[in-house]
């Protein structure tokens, strides 16, 4: 029990950062390097913090009770999807590092706007965010972040085996060839981008009560780069990569806490060494070298 008290927050943070890593993985499935997640994360958090503290929502809170929280997640998801569409449609014409830079710009613009609005609490941000479902301890958030992670992993595994997942992969492999084979690139790039945005938005909405407060420092350039590191260190070609990378890199500074002044120096060294010596990311260490030959399913011939 002491263990949960002491490390509960960290464990949930690991799940949370794993989810944020995954939010980058979806666009990456379609070959799009987007660093926009912190923007949607911040948006989701603000939505939850505003719905949780703003007087305008008091009647809604009264009448809904704890149901306000799922509603916050829903609103955050929908709002992120809408913003994702608005940003994604023009931005996804860009490729590679240019898309990454455009999404960084998006995150930064959003941050400055949040810093200046009064509904977001300006520089101080919003505080006293109410706790869902009578949660008291931080580890209890495992009851919402945990199921979300499981759901998202199930979703991803199913997605990868579906028609849409194949379309994503074809875009990552060769956008032009995919286009010539009947896969509409823009449609699926935007879809992948929006899935990532919705996930980041929902994680943000769950995180505002988790952190008790929300402010413009939540969605920054630093976070963009951190999430990218999750994906690359964990492994970008398998859904477990970002989860593992996010969890481990979030835990690293805490694991190194006993080193005191040296902890961030070592943290940096670990990043360097990991990027040098784990070319396939962490999951590359576990992956079986070669898949077994595919077996043809026993079905009757489908007449053309």
């Amino acid at each position, binding site marked *: 029990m002491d263990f949960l008290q002491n490390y509960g927050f960290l464990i949930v943070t690991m799940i949370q950062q794993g989810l944020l890593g995954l939010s980058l993985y979806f666009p990456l499935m379609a070959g799009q390097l987007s660093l926009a997640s912190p923007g949607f994360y911040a948006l989701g958090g603000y939505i939850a913090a505003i719905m949780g503290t703003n007087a305008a929502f008091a009647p809604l809170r009264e009448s809904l009770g704890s149901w306000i929280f799922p509603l916050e997640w829903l609103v955050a998801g929908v709002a992120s999807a809408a913003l994702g569409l608005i940003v994604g449609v023009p931005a996804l014409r860009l490729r590679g590092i240019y898309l990454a830079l455009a999404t960084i710009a998006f995150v930064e613009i959003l941050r400055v706007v949040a810093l200046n609005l009064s509904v977001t609490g300006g520089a101080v941000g919003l505080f006293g965010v109410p706790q869902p479902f009578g949660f008291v301890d931080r580890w209890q958030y495992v009851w919402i972040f945990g199921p979300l992670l499981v759901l998202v992993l199930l*979703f991803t595994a*199913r*997605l990868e*085996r*579906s*028609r*849409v*997942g*194949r*379309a994503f*992969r*074809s875009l990552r*492999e*060769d956008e*032009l*060839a*995919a*286009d*010539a*084979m*009947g*896969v*509409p*690139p823009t449609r699926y790039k935007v*879809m992948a981008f929006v*899935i990532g945005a919705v996930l980041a938005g929902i994680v943000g909405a769950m995180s505002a009560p988790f952190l008790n407060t929300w402010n413009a420092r939540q969605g920054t350039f630093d976070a963009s780069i951190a999430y990218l590191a999750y994906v690359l260190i964990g492994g970008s070609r398998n859904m477990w990569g970002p989860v593992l990378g996010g969890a481990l890199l979030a835990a690293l500074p805490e694991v190194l806490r006993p080193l005191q002044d040296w902890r961030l120096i070592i943290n940096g060294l670990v990043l360097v060494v990991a990027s040098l010596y784990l070319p396939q990311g962490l999951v590359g260490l576990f992956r079986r070298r070669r*898949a*077994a*030959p*595919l077996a*043809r*399913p026993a*079905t009757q*011939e*489908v007449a*053309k």
Partner: protein
Amino acid sequence: MSAPAPSPAREPVLRAEGLTRRFGGLVAVGDVSFDVMPGEIFGLIGPNGAGKTTLFNLMTGLTPPSSGRLRFEGRDVTGLAPHRIATLGLGRTFQNIRLFRGLSALENVKIAQHARTRAGLLAGVLGGAREEERQVEARAWDLLDLVGLANRAGEDAGNFSYGDQRRLEIARALALDPKVLLLDEPAAGMNSAEKHGLTEFIRDVRARFDLTVMVIEHHVPLVMNLCDRIAVLNFGQLIAMGDPASVQRDPKVIEAYLGAE
């Protein structure tokens, strides 16, 4: 053995009207017009840099034309996005092979069935598309069988030999369920035994899938043997068109080829 001769009464399946593409000052394709009749095997030859691949790119929407029109089954498809044209029924292979190299052969063929399937995001994730998936899978195996690669379905496309990659690309293009198949140098990199088999294979595919075929090829004996009609491009201009024998005798063609040597 021999293909049914194109009946003159039928509408052309493809009609190019003055297709032109300029890159800066260079005219890569200049005012090219031709008809391709249903069921035909239509050859496109010409020296290197004559604009053959550019013409394919114009026809499949990868490069927008500077001017001119392309009609497919009577419908104006000029300027449509590549995936739209592919969906209408124009499948192609690439001169410098563009398979999804990191994906398995089976995946490559499954992906090209995208346009002929419907399952959306939710159906795919929630399992509402099982029957469709089963059909996609089965058809992919059939097509791999057709090109003789079913025993290597699980291997990454990038690991295949040159000739196998060309065959896989054809299987992938067929998976689109096209009405017209555009083959860009299908014999390049194949050994002579493979080349020999290719003629039979293309004819067989045409018959089996009721296709029209357009083929860019350098290997002259193959072209002469395979094609019903041939068009010759030089410096982006169409300099001759007709049945293999007459094209072979055409002085402009001889000059173009000799001049290019």
